[in-house]
């Protein structure tokens, strides 16, 4: 078990290193001339040279990466070009806001999707199953901003139940904040529902079809006990892995949702830094998104291992 966890942490660190190389390569090598690409074709050569000097992008690539990466290790994510403040000072509050939104979305989404998947699995092949599956595929397929617009129209404008912006007024209590977050969270929920419900459903069908379930039925257990003690425990295991992967997706989905609802999260910050051509801030934001994803999948991996007796007792990897 300890070996398993250490191995996963090691792998995550390697992935993190490669991630930093990729992000660095895209943001530094791809533009060719960073100063030119930030300032545009009409800037004078002097101002381009000056910006390259200031950013240090006129030095050899390896040296640049080394400087940037050793800064990262010490917690220095670089400096925003347009605002001239450390990128982390902007990213930290944005990340907190995004995590708040993601948390509300998850608290709604995970139970609803699992229940949906379990029902679909129990009613495998029936009308309820088809309905849940098709609704899941449809919502998962729709871009978040499309779902968001439809929800804004129905619940925000026509029914007038919920506020259409996500940012609660300054100093409002927790309940009001959650109320403001409901529409964007619901948008993310609808998109995630399909993925999570699908995996839960597949897990249910597998478990229902297994020998141990048949044995449980044949030894005379009531079906509620069979489902609760035998089927669910096995069916929900793969769901955990999917939920973790979807967190990564969630952060990507946040960009569109935060732009639509004008919510000051990391998605909106990434969007704004891209519009302002603030490459250092954008690079830092992208890297933070990647790190969040790696941490969440690492936790999910470990959780999965702890819940799965085959890994817990070290009989399989």
């Amino acid at each position, binding site marked *: 078990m300890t070996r398993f966890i250490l191995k996963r942490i090691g792998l995550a660190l390697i992935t993190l290193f490669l991630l930093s*190389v990729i992000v660095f390569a895209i943001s530094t090598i*791809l533009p060719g001339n960073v100063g030119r690409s930030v300032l545009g074709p009409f800037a004078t050569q002097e101002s381009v040279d000056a910006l390259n000097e200031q950013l240090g992008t006129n030095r050899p690539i390896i040296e640049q990466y080394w400087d940037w990466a050793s800064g990262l290790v010490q917690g220095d994510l670089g400096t925003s070009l347009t605002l001239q403040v450390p990128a982390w000072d902007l990213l930290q509050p944005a990340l907190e806001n995004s995590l708040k939104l993601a948390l509300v979305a998850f608290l709604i989404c995970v139970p609803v999707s699992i229940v949906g998947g379990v029902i679909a699995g129990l009613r495998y092949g029936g009308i309820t199953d088809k309905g849940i599956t098709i609704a899941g595929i449809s919502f998962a397929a729709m*871009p978040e901003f499309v779902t968001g*617009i439809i929800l804004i129209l129905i619940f925000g404008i026509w029914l007038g139940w919920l506020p259409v912006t996500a940012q609660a007024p300054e100093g409002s209590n927790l309940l009001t904040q959650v109320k403001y977050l409901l529409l964007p969270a619901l948008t993310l929920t609808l998109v995630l529902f399909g993925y999570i419900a699908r995996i839960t459903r597949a897990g249910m069908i597998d478990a229902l079809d297994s020998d141990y379930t048949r044995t449980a039925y044949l030894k005379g257990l009531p079906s509620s006990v069979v489902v609760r003690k035998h089927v669910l425990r096995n069916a929900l295991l793969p769901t955990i892995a999917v939920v973790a992967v979807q967190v990564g997706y969630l952060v990507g989905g946040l960009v569109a949702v935060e732009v639509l609802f004008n919510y000051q999260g990391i998605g909106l910050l990434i969007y704004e830094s891209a519009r302002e051509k603030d490459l250092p801030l954008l690079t830092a934001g*992208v890297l933070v998104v990647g790190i969040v994803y790696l941490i969440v999948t690492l936790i999910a991996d470990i959780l999965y291992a702890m819940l799965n007796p085959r890994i817990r007792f070290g009989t399989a990897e």
Partner: protein
Amino acid sequence: MSAVAAPEPTPTPVTARSESRAARSERLRLLLRTPTVLIGVLVIGFWVFCALFPGIVCPYNPIFDNQLPTSEPPSWAYPFGTDTNGRDVFSRVLAGSRSVLLIAPAAVIIGTVLGTTLGLITGYFRGVVDDVTGRFIDAVLALPLIVTAILIVTAVGSSSRWVVALTIGLIFTPVISRTVRAAVLAEAELDYVQAARLRGERPPYIMFSEILPNVLAPIVVEFTVRLGYAIFAVATLTFIGFGVQPPSPDWAAQINQYYTFIDPYWWMTLFPALAIASLVVSVNLVADGVREVYER
């Protein structure tokens, strides 16, 4: 024809080909018998038709300012209303499928060609190349598609439609190569690959002429699934202002232009949004059917 071919002791390449053709037409028949696939195909067909012949389907000019009254709510004369520039929203929605139906398939074709090549190479050679690529792919997958796309488009400094197509294609490459690699790994163990190797065939020949035809099924499935994601990604990028720009009637570009006026001008945003929804849902219904037919 398969009934005649079956008892033959040594199937010649010709019967093998006709058998695979039979399997293909059987799959197609199965596909078109699934109601969800049929609905999907019809809706996609409708949008492709609109993209090809906007002149026939649009009652008004979708791009240039018309002399219509501005910001009219939906009525019999203008079923989807008019926008703030006096353009008929119905005409703009009908003309709006064009760019996404160009960019998304282009992106998936780029991704499929590159991803298949990479998957064949890593799956066939395995070893160090495979390990290193695998680690890199893990790292790429740690970033959400849209976030990576925003970074690339900003770094390149241009978000023309072909930059967007190439960007999304490149981001799809690792994912597709994973799928192809897994299929190649299973295939490379089989006798015909060993035989080709013993015959002294070169690796490129074995990969592309021997293995590739046998891993087409997962590639087809991956292609249709990715097409849905590509439309999703292109629309999202356009919505946040990268890619096609106004005055193009592109759906996401329309939404980008008008979503801040959604109250009270809801029709300028809702109808393009429903159009996007109809297209992505259709593509995904078809993709789901394809997956079911190919993976049974």
